[in-house]
């Protein structure tokens, strides 16, 4: 089995899907010869030509609007937004058009596009190259939102996104694009939408997280285990909406304690929904407060970004609070 990083896994997924299904079209700024600024689309233009790998003008609204048109025709567009921080011009096309196409027309028309983009911090990208804006999409009925945390998942999840009958926002944590390498099967496999996974078993605390924060959470769990023998179970959500509530509840049934970790700002970050969901449907399982360790409620800073993001110390602190409660 070849060992790949996430960029290679995503590139493989795109290549395989484009081979499998002639309806798959890649479009975006610099996705052609440049291969995308992170090289996720590298080589696709050579293999599939300019008709299926389209360098667009600099307009996110245009990229998504054209993608919706392609989807209406019957194509399966995979639109790249160069950094998710630049998606906002396309917001009207995503929220008013792609997300509502099926509903508005009673199913007569659908626009199952994929919008994929690098996201999140950790590479000194500053305010406009580090954002984690998943909340905007999770709150929008009609969209599916996903974020892989490993090369293996990235391949299977992107394939699932491309095959979905609904529009998918596919967020790629750029800080782990090349840092995590693992074996990625050459076969065609799909990771089902809506399924999270347990990346570490434990019995004292449930930590729900996703993306690059999975690794930070793992480090913190290790530290806490070493220091105090606390056993943390870590769930990688993978699909952010619809999230795997059963997996969370099952874990909290066991641990009685819940921490949610994400890079997105705290107020109305996904942690809010998970906390609210549990406090509405399973409050009696809890032995203490639900703690959120998140990006702060500020724009993402250039300086001290590692202090801004959830880090090992911040997660450890949360574990301490909940275990001492």
């Amino acid at each position: 089995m070849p060992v790949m990083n996430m960029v290679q896994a995503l590139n493989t997924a795109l290549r395989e899907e484009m081979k499998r299904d002639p309806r798959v079209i890649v479009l975006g700024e610099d996705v052609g010869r440049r291969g995308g600024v992170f090289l996720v689309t590298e080589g696709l233009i050579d293999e599939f030509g300019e008709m299926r790998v389209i360098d667009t003008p600099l307009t996110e609204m245009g990229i998504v609007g054209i993608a919706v048109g392609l989807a209406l025709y019957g194509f399966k567009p995979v639109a790249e937004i160069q950094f998710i921080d630049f998606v906002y011009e396309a917001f009207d096309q995503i929220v008013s058009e792609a997300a509502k196409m099926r509903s508005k027309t009673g199913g007569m028309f659908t626009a199952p596009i994929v919008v994929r983009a690098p996201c999140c911090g950790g590479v000194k990208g500053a305010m406009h190259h580090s954002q984690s804006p998943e909340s905007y999409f999770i709150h929008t009925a009609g969209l599916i939102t996903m974020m892989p945390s490993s090369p293996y998942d990235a391949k299977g999840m992107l394939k699932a996104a491309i095959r979905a009958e609904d529009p998918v926002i596919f967020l790629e944590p750029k800080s782990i694009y090349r840092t995590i390498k693992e074996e990625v099967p050459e076969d065609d496999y799909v990771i089902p939408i809506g399924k999270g996974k347990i990346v570490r078993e434990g019995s004292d605390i449930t930590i729900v997280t996703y993306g690059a924060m999975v690794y930070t959470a793992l480090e913190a769990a290790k530290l806490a285990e070493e220091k105090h023998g606390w056993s943390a179970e870590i769930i990688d959500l993978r699909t952010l909406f619809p999230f795997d509530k059963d997996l969370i509840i099952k874990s909290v049934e066991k641990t009685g304690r819940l921490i949610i970790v994400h890079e997105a700002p705290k107020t109305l970050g996904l942690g809010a929904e998970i906390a609210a969901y549990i406090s509405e449907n399973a409050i009696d399982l809890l032995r203490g407060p639900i703690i959120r360790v998140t990006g702060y409620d500020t724009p993402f800073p250039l300086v001290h970004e590692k202090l801004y993001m959830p880090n090992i110390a911040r997660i450890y602190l949360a574990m301490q609070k909940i275990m001492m409660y």
Partner: protein
Amino acid sequence: MSQNPFETFYNLNDIMEGLDIERALSIYRVIDTDGRVVADKEPDLPRELLLNMYIYMIRTRILDGWLLKLQRMGKVALHAPNIGEEAVSVGSALSLSKEDWVFPYYRNIGVFIARGVSEEEIIDRNMANIDDPFKGKEFTILGSKRHRIGPVTVPVGNQIPHAVGFALGARIAGENIVVMTIFGDGATSRGGFHAGLNFAGIHRLPVVFVIENNQWAISVPVKKQTGSPTFAIKGVAYNIPGIRIDGNDVIAVYITAKEAVDRAREGKGPTLIEAVTYRMGPHTTADDPSRYRPPEEVKRIERYDPIQRFRRYLIDRGYISEKEDKEIYEEWSRKIEDIVRKCLSKPQLPEEVIFDDVYSKRFWNLEEQVSEFRESLEIMKKLGVRVE
């Protein structure tokens, strides 16, 4: 880069298509307000086509009147009248072949009629009753896959890039069709206009852009919408030829649109048509135009009425008699009245329809919410409260 950008000069004589601006600044017309031919050449159109145009326009106007009435009766939530603008819808729609697609906007009921959508379907839709093909989520007639009419967008102009993307799709698929999109003068200010025309200009896509310039975007007049003398001239920015026409002259609309459609089909790229017309009525049933425009202005425009002009032409040329004309009108008035009656008797959509078609399947959140919904209906019954 094939050329050295520092040494690349262009001049007006190397006519690039998008720079042939004569037609973007004048106004093309075939018949005048009395139905007399004023064009250098009278187009030679078959009688059947002319009669169809006429009947479609009349059906559109009668239907429009009913939608207005139904709105007042509280049976339709909102209506954007298209009285006086029928020639734009009907003339452009008829220029397309059956296999072509059109992406109209909310004011283009005539497009639906001309493409064969029945009055019944349109009224069901607007009433959002049990037969509404769109299941009651949004106002207006939203498209028709069967008739190759793309989805209407309520946010103004959002369909423009859809039409362009659709045309790109057709090209990739190797299908030689033309895609038309129609939108208002106000829509030209939105980002989607810019993005859509720019993309179509780069890829020379087979798209016909029709601006239904009815002089107003609600209360905003054209001179507050753009600083340019015409909308057609905006094609220059994208190397797309722009043509300005009398949009209340259905023959001019048809001829010009047909030329653009043929060009597109032959691989010669997009065209931008500005059809000059006038919004005779309020913006929608919720509007009160007396607040912002003098009734004299509307009066002054009455003589441009596209149906009256065309009627005079048809009668003058002997295509129909006064009597036949009256019969056509009466026949369709009767038919549509019957349809309205039928539609009014249809039951409403079931309550749970609000949970349908959000995704291809219901996820757990909606399953949970549907049960709460059912409980709430139970409670209402039990308590005897009515909220609707």
